Structures are given as structure tokens and as C-alpha cells.
């Protein structure tokens, strides 16, 4: 018997690591990957709660999150490709044409 709380804490840890990576990393693809990591952590939370309450809606939500994440990954990477073509760099600090 694993207390549900442990799953939730694990998810929280993964989420925080994702946030850290999101903030520290400079490569735009790595940042994108950290977003995926955060999404996964949330998925784990949903599944844990679904298990706890014996309801299927949690898992269905995860299903939808996966679908959307996949779509988002596709579009996001396309944008990154376009960005690379325009700026020839993947360094996020140099994507600053909107600075004042």
C-alpha cells in the first residue's frame, strides 16, 4: 500500500523541477521539453486522484491532456523551426525583438 500522498509529492517534485528547468535553461527546445515535463507531472496527479476516488474522469482528463500536448508539441516545434530560420539561433535571450 502506497499512500496516495507519495504519488502526489512525486508529481510536485517533478513539476518543480520542470519549473526550474523552464527558468534556467536557455535553449528554447529544452524549455519546451520542460513544459512537457510539467504536463506529465500534472497527469500523474490526475491519475492518482482518479485512483483514489474510483472515478474514471481523472483518466479521461489525462487522455485529453495527452492529445492536446501532442498537438501543442507539433505546433510549438514548428514555431521553433520557423524561429530558427529567422534568427539562426536557439538561444531564448536573443529572441528579444519585442524589447522596449
Amino acid at each position, binding site marked *: *500500500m*502506497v499512500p496516495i500522498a507519495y504519488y502526489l509529492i512525486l508529481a510536485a517534485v517533478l513539476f518543480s523541477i520542470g519549473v*526550474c528547468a523552464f527558468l534556467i535553461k536557455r535553449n528554447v527546445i529544452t524549455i519546451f*521539453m520542460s513544459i512537457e515535463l510539467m504536463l506529465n507531472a500534472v497527469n500523474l496527479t490526475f491519475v492518482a486522484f482518479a485512483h483514489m476516488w*474510483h472515478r474514471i474522469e481523472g483518466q479521461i482528463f489525462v487522455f485529453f491532456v495527452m492529445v492536446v500536448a501532442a*498537438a501543442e508539441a507539433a505546433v510549438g516545434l514548428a514555431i521553433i523551426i520557423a524561429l530558427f*530560420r529567422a534568427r539562426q539561433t536557439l538561444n531564448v535571450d536573443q529572441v528579444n525583438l519585442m524589447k522596449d
Partner: protein
Amino acid sequence: MELALFIIFGLLAVAGALNLLLQHHPINSALSLVVVMMSLAVLYWSLGAEFLAAAQVIVYSGAVMVLFVFVIMLLNAGEEDTSPSSRFSRAATIAGFPGAAAILCLLTFVFLSERDHLGGSPIGGYLTGAVNNIEVLSHTLFTSLLLPFEVTSILILVAILGAVVLARKEQ
């Protein structure tokens, strides 16, 4: 025994996440992320979500991460630039770390304080009737949540079109 399973794959997931954080080359980060996804799949299975575990492996690690790797290879992304960051990036670090830490602490605090209420999780099938996970999932998905299901298919269509348009070479 469930505990051992949880600890091993939990640690594996955390290790993979940390590796993603600490690696310099994006390809290493991508492969660590794959490790994370796989361990998460095992954890899903231990929580009685067999279908999701399979979906995680097939969709997430099998398709999304592969896409990431392809893009990294396409763009020939090199090692990360370690030059001193600009003022704003420093601001991000300064603001962000406490933020991340705060989130972590908050969530942990909540979950730990509610530990007793949350109860435990016997491994495997969550319904005493041992009904098939897929059966229940698909039943709900195609009856009460049919509309969202169909909408997501349109969403995927839109995403495909978007990706094609955005990634096209300038003619």
C-alpha cells in the same frame, strides 16, 4: 512490494528530470525526458490506469519525444550557450527559483497534511468488480464525453495544418 515499485520508478523519474535540468546538450535532455516518461508509464500502471500507461509509451515517448529528437537533429542544436546571461535572465533566475521552491513546498505541505485523508492505493485494478479499465474509459468517452472527443480530433487536424504551415520553408 508496491512500495518498492514506487520508490524505484519514482527515483528514476526524478533522476531523469534532474538530468534534463543539468545536461548542457539538448539531446541529452531529450533522452532523459524519455526515461521520465517511461517510468511514469509504470507508475500509471501501478495506479490502475493500464490504458494510459500504454498511451504514455506510445504517444508521449514514442511520438512526441521522437519528434523532439528529430527537431533537435534537424536544427543541429549544439551545446547550450553558457555565456553570462543578460540582466533579465538573471531576473528570471532570481524570481524563478524561489517561485519553484515555493510551489514545491506548498504542494508538499498540502499533500502531507492531507496524508491521512488520502488513503492508500492497492496496486492494480481500482474497481472491486475488476472491470476492464479500457472498457470503462471507452464507454464514458463515447457516450457522455463524445463531444470533447470529437473536438479533439478537430484540434489535431488544426494542429497538423498549423505545423505544416509554420514549418514550411519560405517560398
